């Protein structure tokens, strides 16, 4: 019945508690201070080392950072009359980029779903193979999209298909991990109920687990779609087509075609903002209940 007693400890005990807590606080503060000191030291020394090995040097070059954007902006401003027409011209390329992102998100999400269910404790069809599927997903995440895309472009030739495969591969690994973390928290009672009726593993997963986790899965998938739009634009730089290829052409041409570069930047920026708004609206809707 110590819980019930409102009478406190004796004064000497209180002093003792205060002292021991103060000791603890001082130790915590010391550790905190030390960590902060080490952090600052590492940042400063690391910066000095990196700066010394740099070809250009940070202090000599940092004020030139804005030269390129200034060139682009000033030229684009001079030829601003061209911008609407250029944006219409590049719109098909933008669609190609979005298509790559959409197809790779869809395929990656399906692969990720299977991998996630196979590597979640309590749900996996073959519990012993969980580490195997986990490592497969690790590898899929570890290899950068651009490396896979370069290899595939070398084999298959340039175009949207290699980019789509490359992004889908990475997406499967990334979404698989996120899905699996969600599925881990799913309520297993429903699954048990279904297996009591003699359902197969796929039926149990499809009818018992998916309805519980669908909102979270969808929300992660939409987030990944946004990321994949950026990724597919970047892959255009290495020959995967779409708006990235046009951007590289315009930028590497140097002064003279900066109006094209500006038009593409505006298109890309607009697209990303658009899908960002769209998906965040749907995600909040789904998380806060239908």
């Amino acid at each position: 019945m110590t819980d019930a007693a409102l009478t406190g400890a004796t004064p000497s005990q209180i002093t003792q508690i205060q002292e021991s807590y103060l000791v603890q606080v001082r130790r915590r503060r010391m550790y905190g201070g030390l960590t902060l000191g080490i952090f600052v030291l590492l940042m400063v020394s690391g910066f000095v080392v990196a700066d010394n090995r740099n070809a250009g040097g940070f202090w000599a070059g940092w004020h030139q950072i804005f030269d390129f954007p200034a060139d682009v902006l000033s030229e684009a401003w001079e030829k601003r009359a061209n911008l609407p027409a250029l944006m219409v011209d590049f719109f098909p390329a933008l669609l190609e980029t979005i298509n790559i992102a959409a197809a790779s998100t869809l395929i990656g999400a399906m692969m990720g779903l299977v991998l996630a269910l196979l590597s979640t404790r309590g749900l996996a069809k073959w519990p012993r193979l969980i580490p195997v599927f986990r490592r497969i997903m690790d590898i899929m995440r570890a290899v950068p999209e651009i490396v896979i895309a370069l290899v595939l472009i070398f084999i298959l030739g340039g175009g949207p298909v290699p980019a789509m495969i490359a992004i889908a591969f990475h997406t499967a690994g990334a979404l698989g991990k996120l899905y699996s973390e969600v599925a881990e928290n799913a309520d297993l009672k429903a699954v048990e109920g279904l297996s009591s009726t003699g359902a197969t593993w796929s039926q149990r997963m499809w009818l018992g687990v998916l309805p519980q986790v669908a909102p979270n899965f969808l929300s992660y998938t939409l987030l990944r779609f946004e990321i994949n739009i950026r990724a597919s634009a970047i892959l255009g730089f290495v020959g995967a087509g779409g708006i990235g290829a046009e951007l590289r052409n315009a930028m590497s041409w140097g002064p003279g075609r900066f109006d094209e570069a500006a038009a593409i930047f505006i298109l890309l920026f607009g697209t990303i903002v658009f899908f960002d708004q769209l998906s965040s609206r749907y995600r909040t809707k789904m998380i806060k209940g239908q």
Partner: protein
Amino acid sequence: MLDVQMLTKRFGDKTAVENVSFNIDRSMMIGVIGRSGAGKSTLLRALNCLSDVTSGSITFEGQEITGLKGAARRNWQSRCAMIFQQFNLVPRMDVVSNVLHGTLNRRSTLATMFNLYPDSDIHKAIEILDRLGIAEQAEKRAEALSGGQQQRVAIARALMQDPQIILADEPIASLDPMNAQIVMQALRRIHEEDGRMVIANLHTLDTARRYCDRVIGMRDGRVVFDGTPEQLTTGAARDIYGAGADFSEAATSTEIETLDRSQTYAAETYA
């Protein structure tokens, strides 16, 4: 001291609190009763400025509370501490740190981030914990404590704010009868010894009767009863809860003694 005039709060087209007015002229312990959804919590949250009101005014010692913004609003919040049904502590931090959170309004963000509370505050926090009988738990994580202990940590945090008003939103609704009694006694003691005003939402009549100097009854967002515990007859209670003749206080009671007293209550009810 505290004057509430025509306070109204709407959520969309639903009115949670409608034209509530009351005046409290001296420090006392006030119980707000009513069934769930009657607007008790909304009223308390409005007093603490946790949510804005739709219309009406709240004045404390001549100062207008509604419409306060920024630092002035946070300063008011530090003067009227709040205690919640689910304790609302930071579960992974130790008990003393949770109590020290009561001083956040007076300290800079940077100092609190690095845990740089003055030693005098730490001493005071542990003294408050001792006053509530849980000094031994000082170094434990808040989540490791029982519900009754956690609620006392929450009261300690409120006391650390050195507030003029303590608002308690269903402080004992998640506790067993023994701990409920300890928490209510602690609140009563704080009122009597420190002279702080206590406004508590309660969902049992006998608690309100036993600990409060004044009872305000709410139904569907309006005040339907305002008086002393003695005036709170079974008939008045039926009116507050919108219950029929089968309404019995004993059925909802959290008091341990009620089991013995239920006979008397039954006699009253059928009289």
